């Protein structure tokens, strides 16, 4: 079960070494089956794995911390500079706590949740300094707090130190998190997916900060992530974990370009790339190179299937204009003084897939909710098939509601945990009230079949399903009424890369099979060529770039898009 490190590239003494680490739940189920790795000063080791692989558990164990319900059952962790010869896991809690934040520090995944919302950021940094008796006076500590904020590239005047976390952007919050972890000059930093949820530009900035800090101050970094493109950018060495075991270990170049273990290869294949060279997913549907198809954004394979009246070979491109399914014009929405959507105009053709790209706060979810009628506070018009839709689902006809279906970001909260999959998927059919129970059941089975979930899922509840399966069920629920427009709101961002690949795969084949149009909302630009024929880039409530995917990626019109493209991590 346990794995040993086959190749150790460096001979320097490690700052931290984990040796045969075992962790189990208090109920007795083992989570880590003997995990070993070593961290070298000034180098970053990436700990790669999908959710449930135990990578966060391993990372926290390095700090001698085990979450509620977990306990250490074997193995050792040695930390140079801890002043301890033995394993730090043998120390009493109070001793371990003295190491945390001092000799070894932690950068959490979501700074919005991990910074205390009621404490000023300066005070949060000062606190860690005070606890570890860094400096002799508060003035000295304040100086250090200012210094460390400057090091992560933030302002550091008194006013900035006095800000609350909610007054900062996501990227700034994460850099405060890093500053806090770095304040006491630790020997080791454990970074737990610190860039998940940030747009690529901010991510690039954060990664650069981490890289510089590690190098300049010889800090050893343990970088926990599932994003292999990020690994390529920051890590010196990589450890790949699969359900509590280390399956591959080696220098980054070797693991990424000459992977030995089949799981590593599977992970690598699932990573969407901007160039569209890789084929995401396993089913030979329209993915990879083919995804980038249409030059004019109209003559997609999907459109040809549905619009039987239209001849695929028709030479005139004109019909494309008449065929637009969704037309949004002059859409505006403001919450108080905050202009969330500031005049949105675009058209979406029938059978066309469009990516709506934007970072958090750009208004992309608000826009999609307006289109779906879930938000009725907007000004402007949304037309479907030439008919203007009323704002708000209640004011729309049943047929119009069926035409536009929505898939939510998190399959963990969008399915009622007390209902079986069949009951959940059936709901939209009950709303129309036309079908008998038997017909409905039949339709539900068809829909589940479309998303590649068998009959055995009918009577299961969301709790028994994996994240990917739940998202498939949620997609099935959107499909039962055979919509003409499917709005997918960040449907893959709560999922692992390999699951993301299969969902993308599924959506593409569904779109081809049914000829529906799709609005794919995301912050992940790397998915562009894998999912959409056209794309719109949204920034602060405005569309700054709009066109065929090829056009936007090759010839971006706006600085923001150019900046995003320049910062996409690739390998």
């Amino acid at each position, binding site marked *: 079960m346990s794995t040993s490190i086959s190749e150790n590239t460096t001979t320097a003494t490690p700052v931290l070494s984990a040796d045969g680490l075992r962790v189990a739940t208090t109920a007795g189920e083992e989570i880590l089956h003997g995990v070993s790795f070593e961290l070298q000063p000034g180098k970053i080791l990436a700990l790669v794995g999908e959710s449930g692989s135990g990578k966060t558990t391993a990372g926290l164990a390095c700090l001698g911390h085990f*979450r509620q319900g977990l306990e250490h059952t074997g193995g050792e962790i040695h930390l140079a500079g801890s002043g301890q010869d033995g394993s730090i896991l043998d120390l009493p809690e109070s001793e371990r706590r003295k190491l945390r934040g001092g000799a070894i520090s932690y950068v959490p995944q979501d700074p919005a*949740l*991990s910074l205390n919302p009621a404490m000023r950021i300066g005070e949060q940094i000062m*606190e*860690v300094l005070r606890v570890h008796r860094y400096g002799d006076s508060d003035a000295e500590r304040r100086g250090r707090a200012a210094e460390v904020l400057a090091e992560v590239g933030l302002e550091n005047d008194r006013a900035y130190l006095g800000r609350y976390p909610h007054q900062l952007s996501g990227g700034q919050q994460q850099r405060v998190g890093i500053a806090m972890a770095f304040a006491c000059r630790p020997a080791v930093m454990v970074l737990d997916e610190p860039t998940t949820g940030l747009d690529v530009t901010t991510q690039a900035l954060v990664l650069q900060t981490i890289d510089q800090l590690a190098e300049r101050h010889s800090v050893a970094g343990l970088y926990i992530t599932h994003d292999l493109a990020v690994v390529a950018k920051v890590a010196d060495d990589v450890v790949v974990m699969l359900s509590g075991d280390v399956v591959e270990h080696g220098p980054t170049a070797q693991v990424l370009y000459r992977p030995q273990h089949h799981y590593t290869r599977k992970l690598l294949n699932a990573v969407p790339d901007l160039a569209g060279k890789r084929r995401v997913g396993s089913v030979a549907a329209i993915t990879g190179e083919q995804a980038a198809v249409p030059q004019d954004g109209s003559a997609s394979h999907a459109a040809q299937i549905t619009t039987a009246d239209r001849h695929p070979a028709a030479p005139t491109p004109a019909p494309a204009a008449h065929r637009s399914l969704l037309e949004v014009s002059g859409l505006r929405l403001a919450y108080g003084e905050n202009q969330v959507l500031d005049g949105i105009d675009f058209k979406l053709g029938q059978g066309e897939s469009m990516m709506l790209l934007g970072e958090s706060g750009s208004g992309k979810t608000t826009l999609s909710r307006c289109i779906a009628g879930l938000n009725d506070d907007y000004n402007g018009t949304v037309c479907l098939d030439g008919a203007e839709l009323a704002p708000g689902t209640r004011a729309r006809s049943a047929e119009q509601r069926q035409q536009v279906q929505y898939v939510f970001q998190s399959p963990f909260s969008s399915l009622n945990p007390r209902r079986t999959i069949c009951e959940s998927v059936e709901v939209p059919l009950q709303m129309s009230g036309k079908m008998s129970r038997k017909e409905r059941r039949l339709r539900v089975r068809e829909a589940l079949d479309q998303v590649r979930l068998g009959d055995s899922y009918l009577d299961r509840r969301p709790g028994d399903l994996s994240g990917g399966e739940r998202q498939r069920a949620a997609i099935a629920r959107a499909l039962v009424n055979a919509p003409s427009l499917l709005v997918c709101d960040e449907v893959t961002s709560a999922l692992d890369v390999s699951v993301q690949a299969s969902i993308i795969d599924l959506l593409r084949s569904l779109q081809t099979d049914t000829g529906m149009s799709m609005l794919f909302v995301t912050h992940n630009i790397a998915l562009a060529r894998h999912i959409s024929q056209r794309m719109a880039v949204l920034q602060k409530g405005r569309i700054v770039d709009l066109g065929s995917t090829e056009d936007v990626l090759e010839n971006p019109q706006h600085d923001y898009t150019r900046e995003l493209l320049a910062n996409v991590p690739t390998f």
Partner: protein
Amino acid sequence: MPIILRRLATSVLILLAVSVMVFVATLLLPGDPAQAILGQQATPERLAALREQMNLNDPVLQRYFSWLGGLFVGDLGISAASGGPVSALLGERIGASLVLLVAASLISLPVGFLVGTYSALRRGRTGDHVTTGVSLVLAALPEFVIGIALITLFSTTVFPILPSVTMAPPGEAVWNYPLQLVLPTLTLVLVVTPYITRMMRATMLEVLDSGYVEMARLKGVPERQVILRHALPHALSPVAQVVAIQLAWMAGGVVVVEFLFRYPGIGQALVDAVANRDVQVVQALSILIAAVYIIVNLLADMVGILTNPKLRTGGTR
């Protein structure tokens, strides 16, 4: 602080709405106040004279506004039963009830916070199970049952050590007889504390699971400081809402407890006033209890605002 001003304005509006309701409710009470005061043998002339004196013949709207105006200057009208001003009659009573309420809150709030936090920190262990069980049982018992149980236990056969009724000579302050305060206070404490404990435990558990508490531990902050500095402030603001409801409940619930212990507070006064059809007193007390309700809720909102910088500083970046 526009948000606090807005809450304040809402509170004033609610209070006005309550005053209308109280006034209308007393209008709807069956019978005639003048008749009630003078009794069945009263001559029509005397009834008419009294009605004139009490302004009962004025239009309803005018009576409402003169009553409302009186509230603002502390003129609560003339008690029909005693003939004296309501404010003089109630002043003492309010003081007595206040003593009870303040004593009960001063005990139950810290106890509730402490026990709730203790229970949360010992999640799933014996200490947690015991406190959860006891607080559930107490929460299920109505105040008169608790009161009677305490009387049985401490002033009758088992341990006859405490007085079961309050017997201060009229004109003397209740707090001159501290022993007599023990049982009524204890009853209120036992009624109120379980709710605060349970709410405190629930919010504390949630806060202890939060990212910032884990982060504070991973920063190496000592556990004591983690609880006091990072967890407690966040747990308090939702609990403040429950505390407000409990305190407000006490202002009204004190009626039963005071009646049980013959305690000369507003509860007793209210019961007597209703029995005597003393409309002015009923109105004054209802408005008073409503005002307490609104004020404590306002205070709870303020706690919420003060512990949440997002509300305090607005959403500006």
